[in-house]
């Protein structure tokens, strides 16, 4: 259960992170594109479907027109044949008495007039004996007309015309080896022989080629559509692939099609869907069947399909480009705003928040810009406050020194006057004056190293008088550091400590060395004594514990000097102490090499020159 929840939550978080990673422009663009694609596809499909239906309707209409035209032509042809038969019967046979008249001349005339469409005209008695024929030809020995289907049908239904199926004429001998496919039009006729009436059969053999030509015209178009002709029983009279059907190389659904009513029908034949249009020829019962494979619609529509695909693709291309432009237009101000906020986030507090674009984005930008300005102001205020606090702390530290000095010096002068050492007292007062002049330094905190060392010298002169030269002081100062910056009153407390804790209680002569030098970009001022020294643990505590109880002195210690240096020059600077019991102590002041100038001094005092 927990595992499932974990997987679900993983998936969810992945989904959310993916969703978050999409830009506004992309989201807008994808949404617009999807909607556009759907709309264009839907419209195209609808349009295509409309076109398909329309094409189908047009094809059916055209097919019906072709079919009707073929039917009209065929009916016209068959009517002509019936007229020939009527003309022969009513104008010739009925007027002739075969007992003493022949119908051969008229029959020949009629044949000659229509020989393009006819193979022969023949008249038989009811026993099948030939009465007359045109063109004149020898009747075959085995003609046996009475046994032929056309003869029997004519005799069977005497009032009607009868059209046979196509067959090879087998009545007359043609020495030119030619055989003709014919369709026989037969009818019963009344023959007069020596005044007596008898039945007979009039046969008009129509040339099958004429019908074939008539219908093949309708099949001329190089399409897969075609039409064929069947008799009322479904036997094929004409088919564009008739020989193939005879050779069993092609199949036709004629026996099924003949059962269809006139009009259009859909059928499935030989794995192919086809549109069948049927038209019945009047009088004969023959049917012209038009076949249009459904694939032929598709063939015609293939161009249209490609055109639709291209239309969709072009529309899509246009829409995608427009979508990109529109989404870019919408997203660009937001993007700019986002970029400016990102820059601000990276720490560039001076970066300008973008204001522009639509009203909403502009308002957002303005609000954000106001907020940023407010934050910036607040940060500035905090900085000023902190600087003031630092300055007041420095001032407080320095103010701890002045009373200490004053107490020490005045104590020494009082002690001298009491001992009537007026010369020494004058020297002391002079040195004290010099000391105060440097201490005051016109209220400046940062002074030259030279002044600070002068101050230290004054102090040591006072102390030397006081301690009756029980120790010696040596100053070894590199001249290049004299014009550098230092904060005031940093050497004097160290000398004080060297006297009180180092050399005062020594048995031998104490020595204090003040050494100043430059190393790389830093300067060092060392106060070294050969006094009592201290253990390592104590050295470690000197610069950490500000509440240490001092044994002697004013209570202003090394930590005071150390903190003041760090406040002014930075954490990298301050004091370094080296000491060992009975070996003396070295306290080293570490300062940056900053040449003294008014401007530099002001900056250091304002707290802006921290290295």
């Amino acid at each position: 259960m927990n595992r499932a929840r974990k997987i679900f939550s993983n998936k969810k978080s992945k989904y959310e992170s993916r969703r978050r990673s999409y830009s506004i422009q992309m989201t807008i663009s994808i949404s617009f594109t999807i909607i556009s694609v759907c709309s264009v596809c839907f419209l195209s499909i609808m349009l295509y479907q409309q076109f398909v239906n329309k094409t189908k309707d047009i094809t059916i209409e055209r097919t019906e027109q072709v079919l009707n035209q073929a039917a009209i032509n065929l009916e016209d042809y068959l009517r002509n044949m019936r007229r020939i038969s009527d003309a022969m019967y009513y104008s010739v046979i009925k007027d002739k008495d075969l007992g003493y008249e022949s119908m051969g001349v008229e029959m020949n005339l009629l044949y000659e007039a229509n020989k393009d469409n006819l193979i022969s005209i023949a008249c038989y008695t009811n026993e099948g004996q030939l009465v007359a024929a045109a063109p004149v030809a020898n009747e075959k020995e085995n003609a046996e007309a009475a046994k032929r289907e056309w003869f029997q049908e004519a005799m069977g239904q005497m009032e009607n015309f009868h059209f046979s199926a196509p067959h090879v004429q087998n009545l007359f001998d043609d020495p030119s080896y030619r055989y003709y496919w014919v369709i026989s039009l037969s009818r019963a006729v009344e023959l007069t022989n020596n005044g007596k009436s008898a039945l007979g059969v009039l046969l008009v053999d129509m040339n099958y080629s004429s019908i074939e030509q008539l219908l093949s015209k309708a099949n001329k178009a190089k399409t897969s559509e075609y039409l064929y002709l069947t008799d009322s029983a479904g036997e094929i009279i004409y088919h564009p692939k008739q020989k193939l059907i005879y050779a069993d190389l092609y199949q036709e659904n004629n026996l099924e099609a003949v059962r269809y009513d006139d009009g259009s029908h859909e059928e499935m034949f030989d794995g192919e869907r086809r549109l069948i249009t049927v038209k019945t020829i009047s009088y004969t019962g023959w049917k012209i069947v038009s076949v249009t494979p459904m694939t032929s619609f598709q063939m015609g529509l293939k161009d249209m399909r490609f055109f639709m695909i291209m239309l969709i693709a072009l529309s899509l291309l246009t829409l995608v480009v427009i979508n990109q432009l529109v989404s870019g237009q919408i997203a660009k101000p937001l993007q700019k705003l986002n970029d400016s906020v990102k820059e601000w986030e990276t720490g560039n507090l001076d970066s300008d928040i973008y204001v522009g674009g639509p009203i909403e984005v502009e308002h957002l930008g303005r609000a954000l810009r106001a907020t940023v300005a407010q934050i910036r102001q607040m940060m500035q205020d905090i900085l000023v406050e902190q600087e003031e606090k630092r300055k007041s702390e420095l001032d407080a530290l320095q103010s701890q020194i002045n009373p200490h000095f004053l107490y020490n010096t005045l104590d020494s002068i009082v002690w001298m006057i009491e001992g009537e050492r007026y010369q020494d007292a004058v020297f002391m007062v002079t040195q004290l004056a010099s000391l105060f002049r440097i201490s005051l330094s016109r209220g400046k905190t940062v002074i030259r190293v030279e002044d600070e060392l002068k101050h230290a010298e004054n102090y040591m002169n006072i102390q030397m008088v006081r301690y009756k030269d029980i120790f010696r002081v040596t100053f070894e100062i590199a001249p290049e550091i004299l014009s550098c910056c230092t904060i005031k009153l940093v050497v004097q407390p160290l000398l004080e400590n060297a006297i009180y804790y180092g050399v005062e209680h020594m048995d031998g002569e104490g020595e204090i060395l003040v050494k100043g030098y430059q190393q790389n970009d830093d300067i060092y001022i060392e106060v070294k004594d050969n006094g009592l020294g201290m253990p390592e643990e104590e050295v470690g505590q000197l610069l950490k514990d500000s509440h240490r109880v001092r044994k002697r002195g004013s209570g202003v210690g090394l930590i005071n000097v150390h903190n003041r240096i760090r406040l002014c020059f930075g954490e990298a600077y301050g004091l370094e102490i080296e000491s060992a019991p009975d070996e003396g102590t070295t306290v080293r002041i570490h300062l940056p090499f900053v040449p003294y100038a008014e401007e530099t001094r002001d900056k250091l005092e304002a707290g802006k020159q921290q290295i």
Partner: protein
Amino acid sequence: MNKNRIYFGCLIAVVFAVIAYASYGMLNRRQPEKLYPVSVIVDNSSSDRWFAFREGLKQAARDHHVQLNIVSTGELPDLEEEKVLIEREKENGAQGIIIQMCESDKDKLLTQMQEAAGIVDILLVETDVEPEGVFPAVIPDNYEMGRMIAVSLKEDEKKLQGKKIGILSGNQERLSQKQRLDGFLKEMEGTGAEIIWEIGEYEVMQTALTEEQLQNVEILIALENDETERAVDYLLEPETPSCPLYGVGCSEKNVYYLDKKLIDVLIVPNEFHMGYQSVAVMAAQLQDHVAARRDSMVNFLVVRPETMYEEDNQKILFPLVQ
């Protein structure tokens, strides 16, 4: 933004691909349908006997997008001449050649024929060559046709013992003729009939049948269309005694004499089928060169005067349009 550009680029690329596909489809549709040029070389191509064959060729050419060229030929005396014709048709751009071979067992010349054809496809009609299977062929079952003549003869003549038979065997250099003769002779074995002469086409053309030969014969067998016509011509001569004629043929003249009962039995190969099938097979070969080449058999009819007007027979025997 970068990802957006990649997606956008991909989409544009796909759209352009679709446009290219649709353009290609539209332009390609405008191209006229490709027609495969195929030449047909048969012996005496303008002869009536090829009428149904030509109809079959034309119908198949329409159905299978073939540009047909029926080469005008007279008698094709030998393979050398056929080779020249093949080379000429090849030069004229024919991609396929449908050919009736006049000889069939000269290996060397067959090789030359293959060389002449080169990359052009060859298809045999009417007769195969030895060895069989070198070229695809559309042929009737010649052996069976010969055998059916003998079968019909046995049906008609209850006693064949001692009957004298003369055979016009046609071009025996041609495998089809050889097979017909073999089929006939095989079936006649044991009947007691006597083959008094068997004359090939070449000999007949050189020296006509002698009166003695015709006088002695009681049954005439013709194994080829022209031979059947020739036999009828002999029988029509007044001095020639009438005798039953059993032949192979499909020309209108032969059909006419069948109708006139001068021919007792006519074996009629379905040449419409042969013509149609040969072009269909050739077109399939040209459209798909890796298609398996295989022989096709066409059917034949055994027709007598009294059955020639039967519906099924007349559909094969008589051309629909004159």
